[in-house]
């Protein structure tokens, strides 16, 4: 039952931010970017780190997608799908506020 995904809509106007108690840090000994959360540590791949870095509470999802599409010269629709899926997953784990 836990695997049943609950549809969480991510509005393009939402301004995602990390809540208190969740931090993205770079750590050489652990081999790169990690997301620190209550009693949990998640390894962030470079793409995930680029997305989370932009979740400052100021930029909208739309603006984040535009920025990533321009920075990495990638199709906007694909970036939008990736970003939306990742933000929804993080919010479900209480690692992000939307």
């Amino acid at each position, binding site marked *: 039952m*836990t695997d049943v995904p609950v549809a969480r809509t991510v509005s393009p106007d939402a301004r995602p931010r990390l809540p208190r108690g969740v931090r993205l840090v770079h750590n050489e000994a*652990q081999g790169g970017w990690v997301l620190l959360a209550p*009693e949990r*540590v998640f390894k962030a791949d470079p793409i995930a780190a680029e997305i989370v870095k932009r979740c400052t509470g100021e930029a909208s999802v739309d603006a984040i997608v535009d920025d990533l599409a321009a920075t990495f010269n990638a199709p906007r629709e694909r970036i939008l799908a990736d970003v939306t899926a990742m933000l929804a997953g993080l919010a479900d*784990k209480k690692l992000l506020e939307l």
Partner: protein
Amino acid sequence: MDAATHGSAPRPLGLLAELTHRCPLACPYCSNPLALEGRTDELDTATWARVFREAAGLGVLQVHLSGGEPAARRDLVEITQAAHDASLYTNLITSAVGVTDKLLGGLSDAGLDHVQISIQDSEAESADHIAGYKGAFKRKQALAAQVTALKIPLTVNAVMHRANIDRIGEMVDLALALGATRVEIAHAQYYGWALKNRGALMPTAEQVARSTVAVEALRAKYHGAIVIDAVVPDYHARYPKACVGGWGRRSLNVTPSGKVLPCHAAETLPGLEFWNVREHSLADIWDNAPSFMAFRGTDWMQEPCRSCARREVDFGGCRCQAFALTGDARATDPVCHLSPHHAHVGELAGVQEDAPYTYRR
């Protein structure tokens, strides 16, 4: 994103800092050793600050400020500040008793990242009976309100056993009502004090089966609202837990007097030599202390672990449990159904005794 793992050269992620063994509560499943360390042997503030700096240098990301009750130390704010200044993620593991509004405010200003409060039951009278402290339940609720008012994330830790396992649903509801974003359903683990109280704590097989179904239903019901972390209780499992994520692989534990242990129960094993932060750096201990070398990796294993496909999944289970139940610290954790001693675990899981608790004092 996946939970972080390591290759051939493990670096620890977490440090459990047992700041003191003093505690106002007397829970009969306390993870502290039977021989509690006294106040006069405790490390001072400056030594803890050095340990935190050395831990960060070693790769540690999170420090769990624990005890005993950490608030029994008058320098808790300075200790927390030192951990924060060393760039560590700081987690306070507390009974709530002794954490005043003023203290919590100071901890928050010092950069505290997260608070975990233990709650003994969803019913006040039973909770206070288990904790051996009248009024504890009420104090925990008050602290939870103060934590969430400061927007510090809150985890409720619920240790489950025969007296409260039928109220898992009520415990999760309570955690949600208190504003927790995470709840740990932590079944009592039978070391130290809990081993002394095993017959009084052991749930029945029927209770365990019902609780497993209940947890799945709660996860579906509260998906996205609260994270529920739960595992099958040891004695009722088919495979052993990957104790501390593998010996000397992901975490270390510093006792109030500065001894560094691979896990909090490691002192129950015979013949291990523990080094102290008063005499050695943390990196030296992690890399070279005989206690950390003893069961690191897979070379120490015997059959059936040695040739098992899961040897790097669960690392043979728990060394302390293997020793406690078989008399051999290198044996397969007998929780594993492949262990020749597994039937004995099943027998022990069937022993329920309605004896009064032997409280931790």
